[in-house]
């Protein structure tokens, strides 16, 4: 198999080094040789076959956040298939995810409000970042290709017909349209393969492709094949395009994997990339929101110092309650420790930092006692002792139904396990909710819809970030896991912050802001990193 190097493969390095080091998306560098092909705007088409890597500078921040946004979409695609959603259902869910995380508008939709180039650049860059993250193992490559192909299919199907046609023209598929003479000469054969087209034969277009591109059609004898060339009717076009997309992507990923060692030179990217791929490996989409969102903090490590502010800003009430109790009493009982420890673990708090956090919090006891009675316990929760199981953080369902708290206990779910009075006072103490707001929550709780109450609290406390009633954690999703609550809150915050607004959440102390000011030089990612073959 031979692959001739695309001219752009080499151009990118030059493009990047010759460009000025700037921090913003607006400064894209187009290499001179591109001018003949790529006139402004840079991205003529909404759809992208990702055959050439981005040629513009990317900031570290774009590198991470864009990748994470794309990852969310891909994750949802994976979980859709895991949940056996039909294609139509998947399409609907993904389209709404796309609107949020990775909008891609048609040329006709261009307006002041929609920056086509920016959208397309984000799509382009994020795809290539994820390639780097997912080319490392056969398994990751397979899953990435599958999810990306589905994503492409959804976009392809929603594309404007004319724009799609002109996009396809740019791909240089070596499929060739069957000429009118040929078509008429083989009329009988073509019609006998697909009798349905008999009435529309005159207007029907056929493409010639090598038969191995349409093995599914060949296997079912659903296509006319002559001399190794399959004559595919227009209506089967999308299966052709998708097969092409898929095979090119798999091929490119393998090439990227081979070239990847070059990337090791840049130690700023590796942790980000491995986090991205680890999250994907974890399987269920939601599982890596935690990793991914924390990873996106720029540093992959959460420290003991950060726990307090993170919890107060983003944690659901059950965890907030445990945290407050811990602060107040310098102690938590067994089930409370268990619930909180696993929550923090899943948040991404490393074991060393967890031990520091717990040691500090249990301030009333000696080191000796701590080491004897609690250390093992905490490490056990991290799967480092005893049977070394990887205990998952407890979901709402488990918190609500298992290990019911006794009179001395603080664990559980406040919506369920607090008396209405206690719940009400906690809501006003921690979240300063008005009476009206409280009564909504309390009435849901009264009917036993604890998670509805919790979800409403999320909406209310994130209203300044643009969360409206009924949106829940996003797309109407209700709370089902404390860690999901945390992640959505966190990413909502990041999202808004990324847009440059400084927003403070309810209940947040005014002096809490742990963002680091990075030096400008550190923000630049050498675009060459994205230009692997």
């Amino acid at each position: 198999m031979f692959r001739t190097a695309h001219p752009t493969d080499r151009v990118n390095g030059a493009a990047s080094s010759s460009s000025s080091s700037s921090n913003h998306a607006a400064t894209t560098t187009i290499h001179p040789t591109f001018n003949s092909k790529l006139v402004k705007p840079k991205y003529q088409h909404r759809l992208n076959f990702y055959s050439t890597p981005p040629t513009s500078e990317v900031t570290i921040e774009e590198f991470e956040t864009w990748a994470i946004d794309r990852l969310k979409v891909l994750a949802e695609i994976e979980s859709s298939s895991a949940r056996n959603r039909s294609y139509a259902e998947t399409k609907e869910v993904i389209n709404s995810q796309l609107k949020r995380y990775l909008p891609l508008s048609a040329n006709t939709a261009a307006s002041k409000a929609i920056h086509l180039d920016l959208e397309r650049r984000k799509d382009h860059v994020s795809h290539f970042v994820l390639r780097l993250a997912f080319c490392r193992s056969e398994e990751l490559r397979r899953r990435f290709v599958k999810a990306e192909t589905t994503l492409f299919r959804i976009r392809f199907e929603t594309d404007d017909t004319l724009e799609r046609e002109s996009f396809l023209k740019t791909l240089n598929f070596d499929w060739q349209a069957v000429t009118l003479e040929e078509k008429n000469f083989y009329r009988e054969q073509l019609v006998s393969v697909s009798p349905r087209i008999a009435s529309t034969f005159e207007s029907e277009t056929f493409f010639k492709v090598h038969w191995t591109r349409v093995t599914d059609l060949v296997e079912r004898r659903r296509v006319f094949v002559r001399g190794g060339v399959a004559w595919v009717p227009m209506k089967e076009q999308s299966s052709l395009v998708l097969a092409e997309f898929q095979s090119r992507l798999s091929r490119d990923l393998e090439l990227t994997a081979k070239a990847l060692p070059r990337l090791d030179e840049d130690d700023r990217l590796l942790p980000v990339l491995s986090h991205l791929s680890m999250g994907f490996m974890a399987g269920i989409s939601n599982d890596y929101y935690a990793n991914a969102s924390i990873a996106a903090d720029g540093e992959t490590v959460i420290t003991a110092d950060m726990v307090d502010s993170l919890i107060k800003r983003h944690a659901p009430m059950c965890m907030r309650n445990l945290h407050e109790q811990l602060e107040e009493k310098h102690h938590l009982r067994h089930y409370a420790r268990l619930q909180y420890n696993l929550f923090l673990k899943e948040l991404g708090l490393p074991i060393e930092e967890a031990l520091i956090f717990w040691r500090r919090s249990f301030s009333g006891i000696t080191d000796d006692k701590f080491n004897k009675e609690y250390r093992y316990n905490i490490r056990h929760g991290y799967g480092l002792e005893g049977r070394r199981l990887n205990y998952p953080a407890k979901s709402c369902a488990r918190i609500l139904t298992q290990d019911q708290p006794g009179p001395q206990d603080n664990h559980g779910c406040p919506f369920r396990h607090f008396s209405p009075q206690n719940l009400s006072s906690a809501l006003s103490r921690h979240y300063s909710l008005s009476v009206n707001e409280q009564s909504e929550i309390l009435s849901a709780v009264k009917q036993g819809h604890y998670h509805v109450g919790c979800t409403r609290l999320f909406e209310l406390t994130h209203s300044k970030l643009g969360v409206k009633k009924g949106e829940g954690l996003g797309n109407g999703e209700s709370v089902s896991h404390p860690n999901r609550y945390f992640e959505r809150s966190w990413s909502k915050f990041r999202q808004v912050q990324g847009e440059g607004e400084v927003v403070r959440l309810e209940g947040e102390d005014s002096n809490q802001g742990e963002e680091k000011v990075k030096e400008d030089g550190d923000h630049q990612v050498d675009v060459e990193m994205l230009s692997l073959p």
Partner: protein
Amino acid sequence: MPVASPLPAARPPPPEMDVDLDFDDEQDRDAFSSLDERAIEVRESSDPMSMLQYYRRLLPFKQLFTWLNQDLSHQPSRNFTHREFAFTLQNEAYLRYNSFSDADQLKREVCRLNPARFEIGPVYSAKPKDRKTVQKSGFRPTFRELVFDIDMTDYDEVRTCCSGKGICRRCWAFIAVAVRVLDQALREDFGFKHLLWVYSGRRGIHCWVSDREACELADDARKAIVGWLEVIKGSSNQVKKVDTSSTGGGGMGNHPRSLHPSLRRAIGGDGPASGPLKLAFVDTVLKDQDCFRSRRHWETLLQLLPSTETEAVGRLRTKWESSSPHSERSSLEKWSDVMEAAHRSGEHRSKSIWRPCLEDIILQYTYPRIDSEVSKHLNHLLKSPFVVHPATGRVCVPLDPEKVADFDPESDCPTVAQLLRELNSWEAKNGGGGGKPTSNMRATTASRANHSARKAGQGGGADNEDDDDDDDDSKGRTSASSPRQDWEKTSLKPFVELFQRHCSAIVKETRQHRKAQEKFSIDF
């Protein structure tokens, strides 16, 4: 290599040899005397000493090498060096993952092991013999001929002359039409050029497609071809095994019946436009095999007729049941009864109901029945051409697809014993075995001039004078009439020559491909 002394005319058979006599075969029992002779022939042929002689002096290793190597003989490529060979020894031990650097090494090992047969597998990413030293992921099949296997046992429900392991000239006709149809589909539909058809030595035929593109096909593409070529489906307890209305190009709903062009070409139109299947249906199924004579068989036919036409089918049943044993209607007559029933149903029903159904019946009785598992996987092992079938002593000889119909597996295929006798008598006539040193490793094209016009051979060899051998070989030629190779002295000759021409065409294409690539890289 020393030339072995001629064998004695007949050796007592070694008692442990399994000669596979097929006593349950009716036809064989009728011709018991010929069976006797044949059994002796088999024993002689599969005798280890005969086998060794055959490997040493007759099996065309060099051509085998060129065929697999797909390139000039002095340039062993990965296609040969990374190729798996598997040996079945005389004691049935099975040795896999052998590989060899060239034809000489292969021949040496074959002569050392003296196997009952050997098989050819795929080219791997590493040399099969080194597979334990490479990483598991670094050892995978990458390249192999696309292969097909047609076995007569799959035709038991449609043939009446033999069953099981038996085969005769009459049922060979089914193989002949299968070859015709498959050969055409592979060439015309898929554009393959280098197809080698090889008699399997007993009751079937193999096809090896050596086109580079075919060799590079992944399993899913091989599976797709199998799907394309698989028309007859269903187990033995299913009567109707062909349903073209559901297997592509079907006439569903309001659409008129339309048969996929590949199947249409095989069946053909009416009268003189008849395709190979229709001709075979009349000649073989109706006339020769008389497939619908017995009650069991015509019951099957009735079940295959349109289920909606109960009245017409009922009339046919009454007619066939009432005929007395001596005036029993032949299959040909029964078929014309069916045609008449179709006719009488009126033009519309005859066209839309009867015709598709009758075409399905033709497909069911004549369309190639391939062993799909053999073809689906890149890493399947298949018996090499020119090895000997242990149960018949016959050499697995390549056949010209145009002439497969004329081939009689029982009389046209040389056995090892026969070849050794021919060799002996040639040497007796021409001054014995000491005439000149023989090297099987050096083939020649010189003998093409006195090419004997055997059925399986093709006309001449004029198209490829310079292709398969390099110059060093042709220099030493003496004259066209004095054979240099032992196989030229026997009836193996036309088969080796056919094979040689096939290899030349492959090598030629490889060369052209290489030239084109060199040119491309210069241009680039």
